């Protein structure tokens, strides 16, 4: 039986791990290579790096981080943040990333997803959707949550599946950093809309939120950052909890 995945996410800025509350107030939580190794040794099913480096001159640091991490980590490594082109994807894969997560570029230029999934295979193309509720629908945001594209998130999810995405990483902007739990309504709507796996993200504060993301949100995988970084829970504890709730996990 296929297991639901738990994916710790490390926000990386200038080569260091940080995690913000609602995308601001960054705190330093350590070295990405060491953190990734601790997570993979602790049973993480995948590791996700989100590069939030703003300046162009520091953008190359992520390649070194990925290269070093992939020599130590033998579970899948997904890298996102600042990916603009097929060439950027190529570089990250060559450094040892197994998948890339594309956000802004997927909105601005549909060819990036179409071309990269043809060239490298859908299995390594994750489209990250940052969605925020507006009335009775959700809109897709870009540029780390700063710009509203006005695009309907559900329609967009379907379109990305058609364009060749292998997975969708769905982050609720409303919930991110709040520790109030995933936006389950958004998750379940997107999960039912597409036939590719979805990853729930944004808002985890306790282990029941992970359960909800899978059971009610119908996500194939759950992503979380803060609850793991600051030692509130270990990945092992999270898995044991999910297991006790009847969710299939790799233990």
């Amino acid at each position: 039986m296929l297991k639901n995945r738990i994916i710790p996410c490390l926000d990386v800025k200038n080569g260091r791990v940080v995690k913000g509350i609602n995308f601001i107030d960054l705190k330093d939580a350590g070295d990405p290579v060491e953190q990734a190794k601790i997570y993979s040794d602790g049973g993480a099913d995948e590791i996700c790096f989100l590069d939030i480096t703003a300046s162009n001159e520091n953008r190359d640091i992520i390649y070194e981080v990925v290269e070093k991490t992939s020599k130590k980590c033998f579970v899948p490594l997904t890298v996102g943040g600042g990916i603009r082109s097929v060439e950027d994807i190529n570089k990250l894969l060559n450094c040892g990333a197994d998948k890339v997560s594309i956000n802004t570029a997927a909105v601005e230029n549909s060819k990036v997803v179409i071309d990269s999934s043809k060239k490298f295979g859908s299995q390594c193309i994750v489209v990250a959707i940052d969605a925020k509720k507006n009335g009775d629908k959700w809109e897709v945001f870009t540029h780390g949550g700063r710009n509203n594209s006005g695009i309907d998130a559900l329609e967009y999810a379907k379109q990305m599946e058609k364009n060749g995405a292998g997975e969708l990483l769905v982050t609720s902007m409303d919930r991110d950093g709040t520790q109030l739990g995933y936006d389950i309504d958004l998750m379940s709507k997107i999960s039912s809309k597409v036939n590719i796996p979805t990853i729930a993200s944004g808002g985890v504060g306790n282990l029941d939120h992970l359960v909800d993301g899978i059971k009610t949100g119908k996500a194939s995988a759950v992503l979380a950052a803060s609850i793991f970084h600051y030692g509130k829970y270990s990945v092992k504890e999270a898995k044991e909890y999910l297991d006790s709730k009847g969710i299939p996990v790799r233990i």
Partner: protein
Amino acid sequence: MNVIIVDYGSGNISSVINSFKEVANDKVNIEVTSDLDRIKSSDKVVLPGQGSFKSCVDALNKINGLKDTLNEFATNNKKPLLGICVGFQMFADIGYEETETKGLGWIPGKVSKIDNQDGKYKLPHIGWNQINIVKDSKIFHNIESNSHMYFVHSYEFIPEDKNVISATTDYSSNIVCSVEKENIFGTQFHPEKSDKIGLKIINNFINL
């Protein structure tokens, strides 16, 4: 000993390289090349593969003489070869991803899309699934049935001769996820991404 990872432009092989180097630990020479003479003189070959069946076969055919060299290595000289993911699928006669494409034909059979049962099963089949070991395989030495391996694929290899199957995994149906036919080994899952247990499989292959 010399183990060659065939670099034929089949997509991302850095994880395969990293894992083999980690396991080899400088005791075994791991080389990444598509040089025909190097392949001919090597002890073992790893054939990775990502992307579509067609794109991998096309990439293989683009390198003059590579297919013949691999044929000679695996079927005439009967030296150990491990195919991973699409590298494994290419053992088949034929694949149906994108368009009907001829494979290497080492293990009679076909590669077709996993039946998603009208959307009941999401594709790609991504994540950790348990393997059910159905026959002794040298690469499964000290590996228990029900071990978790990491999968990413939408197509499955259906061999004609069921005796070659060494493990299956349950997703929509019993998917063939490992074969052993004499000196030819293949895994649908990614041992290079399957944590310590995956590295053990790589170690078993290196130590054959």
